[in-house]
């Protein structure tokens, strides 16, 4: 699954919605972007399994996404927005996210709507 956005040079606004375990395509698509016009990136993650029982492969995909999004901020001066929508009754969400998305969380780029 790959989405090549390298030729989308007018791209300004991007929103990707994904759900674990189907998230690898997001980092792949982001890495292909070459647009100089990009103004907004929003990633919205919907959990399908409890966030504290994510499998190893999904964990690696999240780490990669964490790295790619932070890179956008540091090298393109573009502040990405990452929104995590917890399941009803999910506890300790922020703690789990700080483990799964350490850099994004540390830089305050993760929103958890309550």
């Amino acid at each position, binding site marked *: *699954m790959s989405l090549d*956005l390298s*030729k989308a040079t*007018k791209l300004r606004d*991007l*929103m*990707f*919605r*994904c759900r674990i375990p*189907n998230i690898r395509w997001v980092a792949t698509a982001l890495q292909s972007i070459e647009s100089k016009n990009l103004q907004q990136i929003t990633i919205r993650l919907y959990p399908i399994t409890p966030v504290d029982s994510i499998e190893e492969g999904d964990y690696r995909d999240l780490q990669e996404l964490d790295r790619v999004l932070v890179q956008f901020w540091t090298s393109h001066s573009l502040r990405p927005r990452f929104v995590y929508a917890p399941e009803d009754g999910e506890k300790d969400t922020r703690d789990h996210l700080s483990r799964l998305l350490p850099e994004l969380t540390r830089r305050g780029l993760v929103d958890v709507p309550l």
Partner: protein
Amino acid sequence: MSRSLPPEIFDLIVDQLHYKPAALKACCLVSRSWIPRTRRHLFAHVEFDPVRHHFASWIRSFPDPSNSPAHHTHSLTIHRFPNGTTADTNVANYFRTFHNVVHLHFKFLYWTNHESPLVPFHGFSHRVRSLRLTHTSFEVFDLICSFPLLEDLEFVEFRPGSGTAEWSAPSTSPKLTGSLDLRSMGGIYLAIRRLLDFPDGLHFAGITASCFDGDFESLADLASRCSGTLEYLNLYCFSPGESPPAEFHDRSKPYRYSWT
């Protein structure tokens, strides 16, 4: 009273009532001179449902098409042509009086015979810029190609019909420079395949879509085909057995390039 008011002031007052149909209807009863301006707003948005005999009612009210307020309509919704029904030719001819329609919405169109009931409606208004197709099957692509100025296209809930077999694309297609909305749609792969066959290409500035992971490559192909014009992209990819969250379908909060 209208005689004592300068026409431009009267027009301004009536224009302020554009979202109050009851007030506009009351205005029509005050004086004949009030009718033309109020009709402009009263018939700006028209919805026809044959099951509820809306066509018959309209024709009874305005038997002479040349005097009907159809030319005021810029947003038209047409419901339900049941399976096996072909739109009456006279009705279709009557629809040609709606030649100023800009926003067009067809709802609940399913049929299995090869003759699409929509043929009489092809290109009935050359001003159509946005087309929304809700609960339709695949025979709608000739209809889409019949509106040369079409910019925005929205599909809601496709059902593959007889049109999933062979399709010969028309010689021309609209430029499609606005937004494409493929949210909550079954058979997205087939729909995209048809769109990719459009002879004049795809030039969407925005794409909003949801699809199963199995259809993702088709969606990626579509986005790639629009890469020269694409300005915004809103995608949701999900696994079989899962469905997009309700907020993704909330059309009262369009993401961008809403079609109102």
